[in-house]
């Protein structure tokens, strides 16, 4: 492969994953927590695609597509939850949303 080898992609993916994990643990807005979660999923996707290229097998790319579908489902449900929280007057703050009852 001309250009950077798979290890370079893995380093970028690792840093991206760490950034996303930091956002999930640190931020309080549920919207930004969801966005940081997307960062983590995309970092995992990047490793999958990099290893698919490395091993010459397309299974990693298929898995990455499945991850994208799951991420879309997760965003739909997460945004639905956030809108439901906002409608019921619950504060949009993951540290203050404690009650699980509807």
């Amino acid at each position: 492969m001309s250009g950077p080898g798979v290890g370079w992609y893995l380093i970028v993916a690792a840093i991206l994953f760490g950034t996303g994990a930091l956002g999930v643990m640190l931020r309080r807005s549920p919207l930004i927590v969801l966005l940081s979660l997307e960062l983590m999923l995309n970092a995992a996707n990047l490793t999958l695609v990099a290893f698919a290229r490395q091993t010459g097998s397309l299974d990693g790319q298929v898995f990455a597509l499945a991850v994208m579908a799951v991420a879309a489902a997760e965003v739909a449900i997460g945004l639905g939850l956030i809108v439901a929280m906002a409608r019921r007057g619950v504060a949009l703050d993951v540290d203050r949303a404690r009650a699980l009852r509807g």
Partner: protein
Amino acid sequence: MGNFLVWLVWFLAAGGCLATGVAVVSVTNPFYSALALIGNLASLAVFYLLLSAEFLAAAQVLVYAGSVMVMFLFVVAYLGGRADAPWAGGPPLVRTAAVVAAAALLVEVVVVLGLAWGDNLNDAAEISDAFGSPGSIGELFLTDQLLAFEITSIVLLVAAVGGVILGTTPEKREIE
């Protein structure tokens, strides 16, 4: 010369990817955070092109940066000012613990990478021109990965139904 161009594009994409990633986490306004994530997804699509995953790059831009992020931006616009939560919460101890945990995660991944770096990561496999094309991925989806394909469709259906149910709550009660 071609090699140099590949490296140049790679470094541009990596810089954009990491910068927008940090922006997603650090910006206060969720709207700008979502916009930064769109930039992040675009630079990841460049990576996918460099890794000869053409179909995945197209799907990333269309599905992710297109529809999913539009949904996100709609919700941010719908919530308006209510979406602004404080930047970070809890006592300083909790915040420090979060930073330490994220750093530990990163160090862990980097150490594992360093241990595996040896010979395995250097030479990539030889691939044909069809690698990553829609045709070859579609063929895989309809033969070897048929079960994953069908289960993905069920997951999406369940998510759509769940989204509708969450969106139509008839009674209004105040919790806090």
